[in-house]
């Protein structure tokens, strides 16, 4: 990792000598900042773009279900994904019929599976559960 070495005000004052050590810091300090060197200034939140907070943008996450079992790290087209909810609790013994959460509109772009998606899993005697997991848009 490149070391960070601060440039002080007087080194850049009119008449100050243009030393090799100063130019090396002009060159290496940006590298040290990008590498996260100790003592180097950090990129502040206000300097960042807001792409990651726009729903559906590249880099954003969605909790959704797909059209087929998908392994951790695999990618799918957005048209196969529908945003949905997770169950917080399942009442036991109160109903024999199933229930399904609402789903949003199918997505755009390409998404990477950040969990493991199982379309369905056997549940009880003859029933099945439907899966959903976390996805990240990568393109």
């Amino acid at each position, binding site marked *: 990792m490149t070391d960070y070495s601060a440039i002080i005000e007087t080194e850049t004052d009119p008449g100050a000598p243009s030393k090799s050590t100063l130019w090396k810091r002009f060159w290496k300090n940006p590298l040290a900042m990008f590498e996260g060197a100790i003592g180097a200034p950090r990129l502040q939140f206000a300097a960042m773009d807001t792409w990651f907070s726009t*729903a559906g943008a590249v880099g954003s996450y969605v909790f959704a279900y797909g059209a087929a079992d998908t392994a951790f790290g695999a990618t799918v087209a957005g048209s196969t994904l529908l945003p949905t909810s997770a169950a917080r609790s399942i009442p036991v013994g109160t109903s024999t019929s199933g229930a399904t959460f609402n789903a949003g509109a199918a997505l755009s772009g390409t998404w990477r599976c950040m969990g493991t998606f199982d379309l369905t899993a056997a549940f009880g005697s003859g029933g099945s559960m439907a899966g959903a997991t976390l996805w990240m848009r990568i*393109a």
Partner: protein
Amino acid sequence: MMQIRNPVFTADGRIDVEVDFPSWGWLLFTADPNDVAPHGREIFAAALAMGPAPYTAPAEDAGAA
């Protein structure tokens, strides 16, 4: 512009297409004229110009309950 191939309309009028992304290589991509990402809208226009294949409904899953 990135290379694209095999455009196919989705059920809702968007276009599923394979795109050769510089960072990822070939990926399945859903192109949307209303995508929040500008490149998604551009890919939709390019895919539409290629004359996408019509949408075909998926076959019934014989194993479905």
